[in-house]
């Protein structure tokens, strides 16, 4: 029912294939990608680091909560780690459900909660320096 993992490279087809089921009428997928600008500076590349065992466990908690809250058929959460270039996908979350309301709401819930609780860290590299995103006020 749930596909939850941490990978080097996101495969959108794998995510969609997992969500696909004749029970569902609606599939919503959110893909987070590397922007080439952040706070007005050009981003050369990024690096994602995960505390993998805990990240998987926290992703499972988020998935379980979504499953409780919404009538879902299937669910996917995949996060990438390692070096990423602008444009590359870094996360995909998605669900399938009978109707579209639940698909939009559950998908939004998954990415919002993932961003709050899952121990993964992003370092942005600009031309002249680099920053751990969110680290400082």
């Amino acid at each position, binding site marked *: 029912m749930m596909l939850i993992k941490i990978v080097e490279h996101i495969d959108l087809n794998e995510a969609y294939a997992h969500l696909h089921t004749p029970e569902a009428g609606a599939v919503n997928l959110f893909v987070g990608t590397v922007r080439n600008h952040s706070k007005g500076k050009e981003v050369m590349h990024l690096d*994602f*680091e995960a505390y993998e*065992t805990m990240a998987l466990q926290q992703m499972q908690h988020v998935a379980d909560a979504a499953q409780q809250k919404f009538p879902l058929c299937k669910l996917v959460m995949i996060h990438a780690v390692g070096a990423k270039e602008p444009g590359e996908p870094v996360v995909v979350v998605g669900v399938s459900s009978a109707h579209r309301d639940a698909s939009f709401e559950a998908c939004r819930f998954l*990415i919002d909660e993932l961003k709050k609780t*899952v121990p*993964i860290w992003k370092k942005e590299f600009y031309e002249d320096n680099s920053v*751990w995103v969110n680290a*400082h*006020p």
Partner: protein
Amino acid sequence: MEILLFGITREIVGKQKLPVPADQNITTVKALKTWLGQQYPAMQSLSSLLVAVDSEYAQDDDVLNGENEIALIPPVSGG
């Protein structure tokens, strides 16, 4: 006791695992944070600093011992 480090905390300490000397007698999350702030003042300037015990977020009063996996969780930025 040994603390796993990630992201900016790994860079502040300069290694992936931080041993906590037994003579510090640190037995709670709160005591660990206080000690870390003294040893590494840069940690005090972070937006937040949480502690995880066996992959779950821990509270200040939670007890630490050498049998659990303990990690520092600086502000997350995945997704």
